[in-house]
């Protein structure tokens, strides 16, 4: 169990960390550091590795416990706390950015240790054992730590499962389906906008105004499509025969407005010739 857990740790570190660089110290990781906790020379790099290797103080504590073949249920808080503090102090000494969680755990251990020194209560059960909560957390964490390792072993896409890839004959590709809009939806949007903007209302319900504006856009667009070599469009071509008198009036109004605002200009190349229209500017 002990060896397994160490081996697991190493395996996970070799393949589990996506961004971890290969350090020359990788070989002594874990082993070298843990073997002689009393030996105070631990290379700073090794301490960094500890931080990288362990998923927080619970993971680190579990490692210490398993390494020393301690029983979680009978957690020797004094010994574990001592070892834990050695590392924490070392890390603080070399001013390693130490995750707050490690310091919190140090405080928890110290508290448990001090409570254990108090005279024992007569009735002893789990709830009275100051270690109970920590033991429960360690156990729970270990359950999921193991589950994560097992999940990593499951066959998975990209690594162990390769999918087939078959196309339709002729690679026929369906055109992208475009959004459907209901006219009622559009009208309701219009009504909302109008309600929100009072000024909109009395300006725009006139269909003539609309038609004129639309026609102005239409004319500008049509003129924009001309080439620079032939920038003119015949005046008569701006009118559609199918629109009747109203259409002619609207178009004429639109042209007049556009001329008035110097957006377009009309010319005649000869007397009584066709009127030509083009964009101005």
């Amino acid at each position: 169990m002990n060896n397994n857990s160490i081996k697991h740790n190493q395996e996970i570190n070799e393949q589990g960390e996506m961004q971890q660089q290969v350090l020359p110290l990788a070989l002594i990781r874990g082993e070298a550091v843990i073997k002689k906790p009393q030996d105070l020379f631990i290379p700073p790099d090794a301490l960094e590795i500890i931080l990288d290797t362990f998923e927080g103080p619970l993971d680190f504590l579990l490692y210490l416990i398993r390494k020393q073949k301690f029983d979680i249920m009978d957690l020797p808080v004094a010994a574990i706390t001592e070892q834990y503090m050695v590392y924490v102090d070392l890390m603080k000494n070399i001013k390693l950015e130490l995750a707050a969680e490690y310091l919190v755990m140090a405080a928890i251990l110290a508290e448990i240790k001090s409570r254990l020194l108090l005279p024992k209560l007569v009735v002893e059960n789990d709830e009275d054992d100051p270690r109970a909560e920590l033991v429960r957390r360690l156990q729970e964490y270990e359950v999921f730590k193991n589950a994560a390792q097992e999940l990593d072993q499951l066959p998975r896409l990209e690594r162990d499962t390769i999918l087939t890839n078959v196309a339709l004959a002729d690679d026929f590709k369906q055109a992208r389906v475009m959004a459907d809009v209901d006219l009622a939806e559009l009208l309701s949007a219009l009504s909302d906008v109008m309600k929100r903007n009072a000024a909109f209302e009395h300006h725009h319900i006139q269909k003539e105004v609309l038609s004129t504006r639309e026609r102005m856009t239409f004319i500008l667009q049509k003129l924009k499509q001309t080439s620079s070599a032939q920038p003119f469009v015949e005046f008569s071509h701006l009118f559609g025969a199918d629109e009747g008198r109203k259409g002619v009036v609207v178009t004429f109004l639109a042209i007049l407005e556009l001329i008035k605002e110097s957006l377009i200009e009309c010319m005649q190349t000869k007397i009584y010739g066709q009127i030509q229209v083009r964009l101005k500017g």
Partner: protein
Amino acid sequence: MSDIENIRKKTLTDAELKPLLEAAVFVAGKPLSVARMKEILLADYRLSTKRIKVILNQLKEDYNDRGIELVEVASGYRFQAQTAHNEQLLALFKEKAPRFSRALLETLVLIAYKQPITRGEIEEIRGVAVSSYIIKTLQERGWVKVIGHKEVPGRPSLYGTNKEFLDYFSLTSLSQLPQLMAVTELSDEPKPSNEPQTSKGSELAKIAELSVSH
């Protein structure tokens, strides 16, 4: 782990080669050439092109009566669905039609009614920013386009509607929209019929500020 041993042996029976080639063509993601099969897949074996082709022909026959077939295209071999099923299979790729957001519809309506209009003007009326995505969607849809630039600092684009917009809603002209709305709207608010001239006039006055570039 017997596979690894097989590789070491550097021999491969047809019974071993066939499923391997089959799987390779299936997973390759693009047509797989015989050269590539030899280079990458079978780097550890000495296999003749001829032998590989024999196997591929066997595979072709295996899939004769199936839903898919092994075909050779310019860059190699690939599996594809039998043409006969195309029609039905296409149903699998029909995406659900997305729905347009309220913001998009309101933007569209404003462009339709107040064209030519700038994005800033739309934002002013709606009271919220108009996302570039909305404008882009409307343009991609062919409903809205830039018809010029307003001659103010920054020369913002002026938007207007296209014929496709009217076609989509089976309208012959934008003037049909408010009429339709009047019919559908149940509230009988009296229309401000008393000031048609001023309103038209003010609209035109507004246009006067605009100039169109080309």
